[in-house]
């Protein structure tokens, strides 16, 4: 190893190999189907069971940071909703940055699925305050969202017809990278008895598994794997499904790193006493 490389250290080698593996696998993509587990199907079924034309609320609580995991998920769900002719209302509890992102996703998905703004969907704004915000829309929607994201009055939006409070939604989906789901649980499920579905990053999923047992959520999509399963269920393979083979490859690479790390470590250890 050249002294230059040595200075950069094994960390740099790890970065290099990993970057190479991802890049190469990006260029040769092959998709495999990923059958839906009951956990994911819980969300799918809840959407499937809604009568045509019912309103569904999506709380888009993530910003660009979690885009890769949550955007495919949200797109698959939106496609499913519109295919079932549901009215989708999108809002956010997370941060001011979440709504521009949500707007981009929804509008792109609407173009792909032929959904019309204000009829098939409506964008609301970001509402700070987490639990307080959920409690407030539980009492009166219009006091919190007097107008849409694009400053349109609620009365002018057909998609908002008949919605005066949180309880009017047949299903609420929280797609989140933060703890906003806790607010939906405490405010929405416990206080106002809504039906809740959860889409979250893979990291968070373990935390929320117990909610399935207690039936506080109908189902859970965890990370890209969850998104891939949902894509399979709605038969719309997308970015999540594409990413799966790459995932397998990288996971194996990392395991090999761990093994190599151990071998190097012990080889180094054994050599030391000889040197001394």
């Amino acid at each position, binding site marked *: 190893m050249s002294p230059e490389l040595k200075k950069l250290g*094994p*960390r740099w080698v*790890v*970065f290099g190999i*990993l*970057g190479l593996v*991802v890049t190469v696998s990006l260029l040769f993509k092959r998709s*495999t189907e*990923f059958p839906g587990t009951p956990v994911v199907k819980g969300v799918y079924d809840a959407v499937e069971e809604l009568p045509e034309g019912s309103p569904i609320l999506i709380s888009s609580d993530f*910003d*660009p*940071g*979690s*885009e*890769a995991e949550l955007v495919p998920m949200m797109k698959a769900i939106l496609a499913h909703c519109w295919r079932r002719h549901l009215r989708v209302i999108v809002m956010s509890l997370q941060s*001011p*940055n979440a709504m*521009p*992102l949500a*707007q*981009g996703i929804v509008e792109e998905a609407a173009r792909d699925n032929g959904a019309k703004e204000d009829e098939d969907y409506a964008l609301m704004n970001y509402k*700070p*305050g987490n639990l*307080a915000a959920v*409690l*407030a829309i539980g*009492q009166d929607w219009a006091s919190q969202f007097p107008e849409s994201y*694009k*400053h349109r009055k609620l009365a002018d939006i057909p998609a908002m017809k008949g919605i005066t409070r949180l309880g009017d939604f047949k299903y609420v989906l929280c797609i989140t990278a933060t703890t906003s789901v806790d607010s939906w649980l405490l405010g929405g499920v416990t206080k106002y008895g809504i039906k809740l579905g959860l889409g979250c990053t*893979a990291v968070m999923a*373990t*935390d929320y*598994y*117990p909610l399935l047992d207690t039936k506080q959520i109908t189902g859970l999509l965890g990370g890209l*794997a969850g998104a891939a399963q949902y894509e399979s269920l709605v038969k719309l393979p997308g970015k999540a499904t594409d990413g*799966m*083979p790459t*995932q*397998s490859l990288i*996971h*194996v*690479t*990392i*395991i090999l*790193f*761990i093994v*190599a*790390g*151990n071998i190097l*470590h*012990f080889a180094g250890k054994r050599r030391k006493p000889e040197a001394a």
Partner: protein
Amino acid sequence: MLHLKRTVPLAIAFLSGILLLIQYFVPHPWSAKFLQYTSDWQVTLAYAALLLGVGSLVQSHVTKARRKAPGWGFSAVALAAFGITVAMGMWWSVHTAWQSRTDASIVTTGSGEGSPLSWVYNSLLFPMGGAMFSILGFFIASAAFRAFRVKSPEATLLLLSAIVVMLGQVPLGAHLPGIPQLSAWLLSVPTTAAKRAIGFGVALGSIATALRVIFGIERAYLGGE
């Protein structure tokens, strides 16, 4: 004077803490209103706080730039970025407000559709945030490489459970007998047990800390004198 510096803040903390706590037990609408109003206050406070933050930022970067400390050019970049962003947002807001002056509403947004700030968001903040976050992909590999060593029985368990779950996560793991099941079991049983216990300690610890704050036993946050 000491009363104003010490006793009054302690009394404020006690009062606000106790009122919020009592509010939880009172189902009456007035209690909900109280919660709503006090949480609305946070907006005003956030505004004042942000001014404080801006003050701190400008001060530290201006001192660096003025002293021509090493790398002061980068401080100038930060200041310029801040200034231009604010100017763009202000200009757009005033501009749209002027255009829609017939409208009764004076509320405009600085970052709505088509505004310069929404472009800034999509073309600058969005990729930078995403890039920074995705560096984690590299770090999670390098940390695993460095930290997962067979040094002790406990460390070995850490390593093994990580590997099993990693394999269980991907379609590939389905080919290996027992891995998906073991991974699911690890995630549902021992993980749940540990998390439950930690979670419980955390809940209890934060109740105790909150009580200490309310009763003025924990008062470090007030500083001294």
